């Protein structure tokens, strides 16, 4: 079979077929981890309200992320202890960048 075709498995059957650019570019799923605090939008960190080791409650404001001229409050997805913080006030962050980890 022509090498332009790749193996493609549906219900345990291996089909020979081509794939599309869009299919090849699909994003891998990384799971929903409530302890991993990421930037939901690109922007700048305006304030960090917690320090490593601090006990936080679910819903507590962790930091302020300014984007689209709005100051967005980033809150804790779960209660726990702030393990590490990867950003400081003034940092520019990109979308999905990891900002903080809660354990």
């Amino acid at each position, binding site marked *: *079979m022509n090498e332009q*075709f790749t193996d*493609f498995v*549906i*219900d*345990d*059957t*291996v*089909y*020979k*077929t*081509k*794939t*599309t*650019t*869009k*299919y090849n570019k*699909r*994003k891998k*799923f990384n799971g929903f981890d409530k302890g991993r605090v990421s930037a939901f*939008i*690109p*922007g700048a960190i305006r304030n960090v309200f917690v320090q490593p080791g601090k006990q936080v409650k679910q819903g507590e404001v962790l930091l302020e992320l300014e*984007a*689209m001229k709005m100051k967005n409050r980033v809150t804790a997805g779960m209660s726990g202890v702030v393990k590490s913080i990867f950003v400081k006030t003034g940092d*520019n962050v*990109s*979308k999905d960048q990891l900002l903080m980890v809660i354990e």
Partner: protein
Amino acid sequence: MSLASRLIDFFSKKKTVADETDAQSKVKQQKLGKMTARERIESILDENSFHEYDLFIEHKAEDFGMDKKFLPRDGVMTGTGDIVGHPVCIYAQDFTIAGGSLGLAHARKITKIMDHAVKLGIPLIGINDSGGARIQEGVNSLAGYGEIFYRNTIASGVIPQISVILGPCAGGAVYSPALTDFVFVVDKISKMFITGPEVIKTVLGEEISMEELGGARVHSEISGNAHFFAESEQECFEQIKKLVSFIPWNNSKKAEKFPVKQPKSNYVISNVIPKESTVPYDVRDIIKCLADDSDFLEVQEHFAANIVIGFARFNGETIGIVGNQPMVLAGVLDVDSSDKAGRFIRFCNAFSIPLLTLVDLPGYLPGIDQEHAGVIRHGAKILYAYSEATVPKITVVLRKAYGGGYIAMCSKHLGADFVFALPSAEIAVMGPEGAANIIFKKEITEALDPDAMRKQKVEEYTQKFANPYKAAAAGYIDAVVAPEELRGHILHSLHISANKVENRPAKKHGIPPF
């Protein structure tokens, strides 16, 4: 004033607004590698058929020095004409007049020609080449857009609406094309987006070129906003002419009937479909085996290529074809292919174009990305569209028709009038491997040689279920037919369903899974 002097006055006015403007436009557009509004309209329409209206329109804007500005035609040319003998209403924005920006007078010229198209029951063609809203006119410019969108929606399903993107089409302006039936784009000329690269950079800090963000290729392959892609404006105009020949003038007329032509003799179904059901082929070759003159006008060729949609003729009459494409992603249904087919089916139903469905698919595409992208509601669109359609519906199972995919592809259960299957058809709840692994799980795991047992069970299942006869025995298939008889069966079923009437409970409208 004597009649003679009135005539002189008229010709001099016309010269200023039309001839001189056109000459200046030509110089400016040529620099951008683009044709002028007039050249575009004249290239699409039959020779000398264009009649222009509202040449002397004037805007009433006063702010920001607009009261001193005269904009010929207010930046848009409107009129009527013929495309290969079919009457159409047409407008073309002129990028060289205030950047083709849309003010109230400009918009009212467009809505006027749109109202004409609906009243006269003829297709509307809109050529977009505009910088967007005319900022100096403020909220009046927004009103203009809104009035256009409203008419696009009211005209939807009544007359065919075609949008041609031949320049920038940004911000709110993109929503008129999005509301129309077919969007044509040209490589390196068409640009469509809601927010441009500059805004994206300022707000999000992400850099992207206009071409990568909203060029013709992006909308043809990735977003699915465009339906026809061309390398040049001239090629684009030829595509428009061909499409117009396939579709009716309005929802109460039939498309033009053409002389009957046999398919070309070098296309033979038995030579196209491989014996093994896991080996791909191009479903478009099957269409060429069946259609008059082997002629097929494909729609959205580059988007969601795992399903093929388009128009062909059978006995000279237009038919809409939907076919799974085993060549791409094994022909699975997914979010994009369901959207693509669902919308096409609804177009055909709205304009009384019978549907031919060619089935060869292993099912829906598995994946987290698909589930999270809403394959449930998107996949439902194809079920909705087929069930809702009351035009003659003919289905041919070429090879695999497994599981949910079998139901979705215009099965008997969704109201197909005629379902045919080739002897190579496999209509089953899933493929033999998957089925054997589930049904005979115990036997396989407990066997001394699980692989040998699996092979044996797969073989058993294949023998028993991977054929069209279980479905035929249940009456879900109307006839199993030999490949060389297939065209004859399709022609006959179209012939006898020509006066099909299917009444549905009265309702305001359904609620399709958007």
